[in-house]
């Protein structure tokens, strides 16, 4: 496939008048896995939130195209319907709304039609099994009282159910123990296997990448992409850290 899924062109972003990203270029094709690495505070999450359309982030220059369409004018929910998914580092707690009902609502919004309760239930159970989640989680209020690991699993569960064409995973592996990382990785593999969905993985560690096929790696430092390469770049950073890029 040659057409681009996501095109970020010369993108600059500010938060509360403070410039964070300076002229980012990034292209992702359908089904590809990209890794965005960089030290803390480099602006990695800013890129994810900007693609998703958070009102906190002000685009001061450049453009984003998704499936060839200008994205910046679209509301966040429209972007989600177009097929973008962002897993949050700290998923918000929404009291009174059950995880199951929420996902069903979101799936229906995405597809634009009602989904049969039975079909939905089956599919949700299957996805929860992949993630080793107890079905009772479906009855619990969205993210309320979830542990860090449970929140991350609930995010991946939504990824599997919503089947986006681009998933941005923001520090999905941070704060998880080895087993939890393995489970989350399994979920991510499942997502790619089924749908040929593209991935943009934002991380400052590399644990989640061990089981994934990485197509491209980008290094973000001080709001700029200072290096891009293939999967071997991940290994290099694993060994030497970001120092080489910081000096540059």
């Amino acid at each position: 496939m040659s057409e681009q899924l996501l095109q970020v062109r010369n993108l600059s972003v500010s938060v509360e008048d403070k410039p964070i990203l300076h002229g980012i270029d990034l292209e992702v094709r359908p089904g590809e896995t990209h890794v965005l690495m960089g030290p803390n505070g480099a602006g990695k999450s800013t890129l994810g939130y900007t693609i998703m359309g958070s009102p906190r982030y002000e685009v001061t220059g450049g453009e984003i195209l998704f499936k060839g369409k200008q994205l910046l004018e679209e509301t966040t929910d429209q972007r989600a319907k177009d097929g973008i998914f962002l897993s949050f580092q700290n998923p918000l707690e929404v009291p009174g709304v059950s995880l199951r009902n929420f996902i069903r609502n979101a799936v229906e919004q995405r597809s634009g039609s009602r989904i049969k309760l039975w079909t939905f239930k089956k599919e949700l159970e299957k996805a929860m099994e992949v993630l080793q989640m107890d079905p009772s989680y479906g009855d619990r209020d969205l993210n309320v009282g979830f542990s860090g690991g449970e929140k991350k699993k609930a995010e991946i569960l939504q990824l599997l159910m919503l089947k986006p064409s681009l998933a941005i995973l923001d520090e999905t592996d941070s704060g998880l123990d080895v087993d939890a990382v393995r489970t989350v990785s399994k979920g991510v593999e499942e997502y790619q296997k089924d749908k040929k969905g593209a991935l943009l993985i934002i991380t400052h560690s590399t644990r989640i990448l061990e089981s994934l096929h990485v197509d491209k790696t980008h290094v973000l430092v001080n709001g700029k992409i200072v290096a891009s390469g293939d999967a071997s770049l991940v290994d290099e950073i694993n060994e030497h850290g970001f120092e080489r890029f910081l000096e540059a």
Partner: protein
Amino acid sequence: MSEREKTYVEDVNRSIYDIRNEEKDVYRIQKGLTPAIVEEISAKKNDPAWMANFRLQSLQIYNEMEVPDWGPSIEGLNMEDIVTYVKPNTHMSAKWSEVPEDIKDTFEKLGIPQAERKSLAGVGAQYDSELVYHNVREEVAAQGVVYTDMESALNGEYADMVRKHFMKLVPPRDHKFAALHGAVWSGGSFVYVPPGVSVTIPLQSYFRLNAPGAGQFEHTLIIVDEGAYLHFIEGCSAPKYNVANLHAGCVELFVGKNAKLRYSTIENWSKNMYNLNTKRALVEEGGTIEWVSGSFGSHVSYLYPMSVLNGKGARAEFTGITFAGAGQNLDTGTKVVHNAPETTSYINTKSISKDGGISTFRSSVVVKNSAAKSKSAVSCQSLMLDDKSRSDTIPAMDIRTQDADIGHEAKIGRISDEAVFYLMSRGISEEDARAMIVSGFADNVSKELPLEYAVEMNNLIRLEMKGSIG
């Protein structure tokens, strides 16, 4: 369908609440309030002598008492303009087929007969000042449960019981509008549940005020005897008129030893209504009163269901939600008096203010010296949906025993932008995201209601949230 499915319903059409029926051949007493008018009501209703007298005494008290100097303004309410008694041109019936077409049609649209068939043990339907329908399932009646209109109770087998309890818990001196109620009350229900009887499906009374410029003053008296259980549901609505309507009902609940009563209300009066309602429960040893209260309608509300915990180990729970939109000033809350040892009260309320609406949470928790080892926990949360609205929290506590455990927490805030963004990132529109968060906020009440009512409540919230994004 599981209970959790309740968010999946079609939006209601506000217009069903707004059905206005033309007044046909009704008996309408003249406007205002004089001894002659009160006597005329007595005569029309065939009051026993004590009641005729009681009305006149109440009227005198009404004339002596001042309007409250706290709470929302009731300046727009002129008693001289209120018609206290409007009798629909029909007799009370136990068959819907005998209820006049237009009235039946209104209740059909409000879903009352349907609900009765599906999930209720008995239904009373009041239209303006009188009940037009009253029926209770045979098997419930066979258990000895009495569910009748107040007028029949007053002259029937239970006349003594009624007389012994009527306005003893809420005496006319309680406040000006209690006195008004004592003078002009009409309609309402009497329920008696004998000892040990558990009524497993709820009874419901629905109050509909159709006549413009009228008042509705129904009296509900429920006695749940020792070890018995009852769930009573009350629904209220009215079409909107340009003139003020008044609702000054009175609810007196007597919960016997180890008995339990759940009293649920979804109030959706039209926004020209002054809702000055008084509700009170007296709970004996080991008994429980549970209030579930949703306040959505009316122009001005003063509503504070009160629990008097009079016996050892008595218990009160209050779960409430108030949603104040444009033009509404809803002053709601609860009162609890701990008057015996080891009594407990749990109060959990939510309030929402939107479009210039004012919502006030007002409460009092009194723990008397006689209430050692009592426990009370109050939690109230308020949500401000814009900066045109107002939300006040006025909780009072008066604790007079050392050996009590009293906790209180109040929070006020707004819908978090991050939460809205999070939901939108999953493809949910901003309007839906906000409605979803507000419905979730109201979850404390909706999960306490039977499914149909939870659905209705969520619909009301969705309706209020429509077009809430500027």
